[in-house]
């Protein structure tokens, strides 16, 4: 124990004594509950559900406020990925001619689906990373299940993605080599659900990591960039392009690749590969459960200054 560095002020009153507490405190007063321990899982989920309104209201207000000051306003949410597609098409499609030299058929629809779908995961991770740090004041003032913060970030990104998906489909069917509207497009709903689960899970992991280490937010753009290139968004992942077969297998097992691949199979004419869909589903469930578990393990820490 460190000695007190400040003398006790002369109050002229008796020093307060530690109250006489019964040895069996909870037995004597069963209505008392310990403060500062995590709620059991079921109660936690119930509290989360009770505040669902809060998880939706916050992102709606934020979406509105985000681009309020720019001339094009909300349109930027959609314009952003579209401009990205244009840039990549210019470089990879027109300048490097991947279509002829690498045996990629119909590059433009391939690129459109890849960029739009990957963008949902990218922006979810970025939004999740900020949530705890940004809402420190809120966390220190109100007691609520902290998982509501990453959840509301994902709700916000999901809404934005739901605007982007129809535009993606229209674009895909308009460009050269794109498929006509078809029944498998409905499978996009499944991809959307799985991807949202995955995004929520991974953003909980990133939210906790960036609470412990502020550097994560600085590193994130680079990690995401690397992830973008290794998830087959721009160029397909196969042994024609990457000579090392082990590396190809590893890259093909990565969840973002699987989600992008599922969306491509559903939207473009590709045959459905059951292995891709099974692995994608497993990843999404595992990431959601694991991410939630990891995030909740530090539930009571997030208020620390």
């Amino acid at each position, binding site marked *: 124990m460190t000695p007190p560095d400040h003398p006790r002020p002369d109050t002229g009153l008796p020093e307060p004594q530690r109250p006489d507490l019964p040895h069996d*405190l909870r037995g004597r007063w069963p209505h008392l*509950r310990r403060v500062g321990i995590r709620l059991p899982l079921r109660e936690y989920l119930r509290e989360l559900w*009770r505040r669902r309104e809060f998880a939706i209201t916050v992102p709606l*207000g934020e979406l509105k406020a985000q681009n309020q000051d720019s001339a094009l306003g909300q349109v930027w949410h959609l314009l952003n990925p579209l401009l990205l597609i244009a840039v990549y098409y210019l470089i990879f499609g027109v300048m490097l001619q991947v279509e002829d030299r690498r045996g990629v058929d119909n590059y433009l629809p391939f690129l459109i689906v890849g960029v739009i779908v990957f963008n949902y995961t990218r922006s979810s991770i970025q939004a999740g990373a900020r949530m705890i740090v940004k809402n420190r004041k809120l966390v220190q003032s109100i007691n*609520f299940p902290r998982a509501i913060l990453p959840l509301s970030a994902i709700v916000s990104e999901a809404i934005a993605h739901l605007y982007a998906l129809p535009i993606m489909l229209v674009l895909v069917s308009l460009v050269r080599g794109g498929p006509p509207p078809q029944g498998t497009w409905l499978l996009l709903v499944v991809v959307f659900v799985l991807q949202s689960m995955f995004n929520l899970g991974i953003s909980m992991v990133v939210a906790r990591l960036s609470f*412990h280490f502020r550097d*994560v937010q600085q590193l994130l753009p680079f990690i995401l960039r690397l992830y973008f290139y290794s998830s087959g968004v721009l160029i397909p992942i196969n042994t024609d392009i990457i000579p090392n077969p082990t590396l190809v297998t590893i890259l093909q097992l990565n969840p973002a690749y699987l989600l992008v691949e599922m969306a491509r199979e559903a939207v473009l004419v590709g045959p459905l590969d059951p292995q891709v869909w099974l692995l994608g589903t497993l990843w999404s469930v595992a990431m959601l459960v694991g991410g939630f578990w990891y995030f909740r393990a530090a539930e009571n820490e997030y208020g620390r*200054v």
Partner: protein
Amino acid sequence: MSELATVSVAAGDPTVVVDRVDITYRIYADSAPRLRKAFVRDRRQREHRSVEAVRDVSFVARSGEAVGIVGHNGSGKSPLLRGIAGLVPITTGDIYASSIPVLLGVAAALEPDLSGRRNVLLGGTALGIPRAELEKRFDEIVEFAGVEEFIDLPLRAFSSGMRSRLQFAIATAVTPEILMGDESLSTGDAEFKERSDDRIRGMLAEAGSVFLVSHSMRSIRDVCPRVLWLDHGRLVADGNTDEVVDAYERYMGDLKRKRKQRKHPPEQR
């Protein structure tokens, strides 16, 4: 979390038990925690300082009791409140409560760009009040805050007094069993103060507990019959308000006089 259907606590039963609680913050001296330091084995190399915000504090608050907390700036009043509310982790000791205390801190949940109406819903749901319940009590909340004419304007158009009145009205819409105010109970003009004091007394009559941190000895004397005095994180006095507040005011007055003397020493001839 705030259970809405509160466990009925018999009058005189403890609502909050604080047993030998320490709250120590690790403050990083001039930089945020860095990834590198996680790998540094020698803990001494980490550039943090420990701030012992609360040291070995113990007390029991009983139902129907309003407890004021006084002390100099940085004496640990707010960390103690936040610790009791389960918002910041305590370092050692135990805290028990009959229900999760509600800190009057809805302000952090409110969005200045949304209307007062949306904000009532936002703040209420953040506190865990179900939507249906909120809608039922909506008019009552707005009327209590006295902001009927402004409710559809964005919150940033509210005056600061109106804003804090609305916060108080939201936080007390469903009577919390344990209410805590950090300098923010009894805000607003004299007329509102009377109404909010009434509401607090009503809560106390329903066997709730109130904790109030304030530098205004008047509001402490008005609401709280019992006062805790914190000094550098330690509990130095715990007793009835007249005694403790008198001693505290005497002590603070002495400090002020001493500082003045140091600045302008009496001339010696």
